[in-house]
């Protein structure tokens, strides 16, 4: 049994960590946090040069042709560094949707551009409140044009193209939904920036008015494709969350060792020690669930839907838990803009919602476990 990443994959992780430590310091993240740039363009370029953007994209489409396990270790480092770039929208959602359902022409048009850092993509799924569900999709598609509003769309204001979930029928079934590919620079769209929990990752409202769009995958297959995309993204995001959780735990641990109160290191008080021990427990459970998700993703196993939901829930909980208690360990200083704790708190809580909320994934997990037991 080797339920672990290979030495080469671990080396890639070290390489990514080193690169991000240099190019994505908390100071660099703060440029975006403070609203001075919509995302870190230099970092984005660097990620392309390192081959990280196209690591799971096949060579024939301009990528490195490695695989999802390689993408997982990079995702972990992106989370650890709190990278202010549209990595998850472009790489986990848009690129994966293209890989699953794109025509040869569509893949050739967008995937090499993604790998080269020349195109930012995203998924336009949500329309206000609510979780992923066919009935929540009201945006209409007819005769190759879209009409309707999507919000929030992660990185919508900086994206070059979007995969848009649209309604092409009204039977009340999943087959009412189709996916479309939209060039956001070609007109028919109006984009509005939305103030959001995590300013290091922008959110937008996009209004489509007679906007030209081409089908991605077959008509009526949209929901089934979308489910696969979300499962893959759930695993990849889980690695980002695991990386973020580990970093928040480290920050808390380091501060507990450094800070003196009542004449001793605060890390010598059991109330603080036990809080940190519990954070370690959450982070460890999340990492192990995520490894299982990575295995299922990389082997395209029948277990993927269940493994993805478990990874998603566990990693969401761990990142939220570690990020909030990191602030608690820091005390008042942790609640200042100046300390970095709130960046992880913001990211943890924004990521908890991006692919559908915790309660949605809890529901999914139980459905999927029942299906497996019935089979």
């Amino acid at each position, binding site marked *: 049994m080797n339920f*672990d990443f290979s030495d080469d994959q671990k080396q890639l992780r070290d390489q990514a960590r080193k690169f991000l430590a240099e190019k994505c310091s908390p100071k660099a993240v703060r440029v975006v946090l403070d609203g001075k740039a919509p995302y870190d363009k230099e970092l984005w370029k660097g990620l392309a040069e390192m081959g990280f953007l196209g690591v799971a994209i096949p060579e024939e489409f301009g990528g490195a042709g490695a695989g999802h396990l390689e993408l997982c270790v990079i995702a972990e480092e992106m989370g650890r560094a709190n990278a202010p770039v549209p990595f998850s929208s472009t790489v986990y959602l848009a690129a994966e949707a293209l890989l699953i359902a794109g025509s040869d022409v569509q893949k050739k048009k967008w995937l090499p551009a993604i790998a080269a850092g020349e195109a930012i993509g995203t998924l336009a799924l949500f329309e206000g409140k609510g979780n992923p569900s066919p009935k929540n999709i009201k945006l209409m598609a007819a005769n190759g044009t879209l009409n309707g509003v999507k919000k929030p769309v992660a990185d919508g204001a900086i994206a070059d193209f979007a995969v848009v979930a649209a309604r092409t029928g009204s039977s009340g079934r999943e087959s009412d939904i189709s996916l479309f590919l939209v060039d956001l620079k070609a007109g028919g769209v109006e984009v509005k920036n939305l103030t959001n929990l995590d300013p290091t990752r922008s959110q937008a409202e996009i209004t489509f008015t007679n906007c030209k769009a081409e089908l991605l995958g077959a008509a009526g297959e949209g929901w089934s494709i979308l489910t696969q995309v979300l499962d893959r993204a759930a695993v990849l995001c889980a690695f980002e969350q695991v990386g973020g959780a580990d970093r928040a735990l480290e920050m808390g641990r380091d501060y507990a*060792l450094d800070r003196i109160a009542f004449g001793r290191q605060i890390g010598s008080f059991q109330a603080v020690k036990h809080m940190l021990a519990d954070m*370690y427990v959450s982070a460890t459970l999340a990492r192990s669930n995520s490894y299982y998700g990575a295995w299922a993703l990389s082997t395209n196993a029948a277990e993927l839907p269940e493994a993805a939901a478990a990874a998603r829930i*566990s990693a969401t*909980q761990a990142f939220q838990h570690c990020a909030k208690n990191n602030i608690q360990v820091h005390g008042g200083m942790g609640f200042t803009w100046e300390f970095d704790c709130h960046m992880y708190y913001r990211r943890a809580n924004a990521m908890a919602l991006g692919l559908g909320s915790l309660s949605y*994934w*809890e529901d999914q997990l139980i459905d999927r476990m*029942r299906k497996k037991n019935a089979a």
Partner: protein
Amino acid sequence: MNFDDTPQEAEFRATARAWISANAPKQYEEELRQSSLGRTQLKNANILEVAKAWQKKKADAGWACLHWPKEYGGRGASPIERVIWQQEEGPFGQLSRMFIIGHGMCGPTMMAFAREEHKRTYLPPLASGENVWCQLFSEPAGGSDVAGLRTRAEKDGDEWVINGQKIWTSGAHYSDYGILLTRTDPTVPKHKGLTMFFLDMKSPGVEVRPIKQASGASDFNEVYFTNVRIPDHQRLGEVGDGWNVSLTTLMNERSAIGAAVSTGFPELFEYCSSLMLDDGPAIEDRAVRSKLANWAVKASGLKYTSMRAISALSRGERPGPENSIGKLVAGSMIQDVATYALDLQGAAGVVSGPEDAEVAGRFQAMLLRAPGTRVEGGTDEIMRNIIAERVLGLPGDIRVDKDVPFNKIPTKGRN
């Protein structure tokens, strides 16, 4: 990343599987599979006798204490082979429970500190289950603070005379031998005045009294020592070095990797899958689903944490510290799971008799046994200290009694 055996592992697994299939006491398989925390028993047989017979059969064929050297009754197997055996033994592994302390803690301590002739005499019958061993560490005045123990050992010629009391001794009532931690010098700080021995539990002056637990069952005992004489050659380690010897024992406890911990989740999921609530099936109720999902990811998180440790063993490496979370997570989880299962039963949850209760009272039995899981083998608080100090590198507790001679530590009137 894969879950596949190496060719050698696959071969070992096939051999183990074939032997188990030909030799295991299959008539008890279903009952053992249905057992859960607080409820491991056989209807028509004495489980201790069944367990001893299975252990002896394994030993005769070379399948007992796999990782021990052959000359001491083991198989000389690798750590990963031991894990594979446990996986293949499946529900029959429940029968090893009465041997866990002897095999997991006493045996390794004997191997590290006993004289060669003692090892050859005592270890093979320990491996084969013919002798059962217990561990006599905890005392009324020293539970989590085990180095605060007070049982005295005084030298008298070639013998030591033991007086005092131990408590929480699992299985003392059916044990043949025990390892015993004593205080030999009360005038030095507490960790420095301890000495370890092994002894025959049938020695004159040893009295075992079962403790009736909160659950009503009796797994633990008080053990009283009145002028019990132990020959000096049964000393393990140097005089005054008992603390270090006991650390070896406790380290071995923690290295038992791959042993599945009970979380109660499979039992609860199965129960909820068929349970009808007032508004419909429990499994379709949103509140129930949310609870189940939260426990599901803890249970799977523990399972795959264990897989990561096993992978390290398979590569011939030492597993990382992540395995230390198992007991802490599972202990309080099984308590919560049992509480929730009863909540779903409404007022009927109060009925616990196997004949009248829901699913034969398995969740009531689990609830009543669960508090013990959070205390035995290191309380939740001690486990958190261990993670904080050994994994995260946080400072140890400030110990006010560290440099004080043991007999000068305040006791609030207790001795």
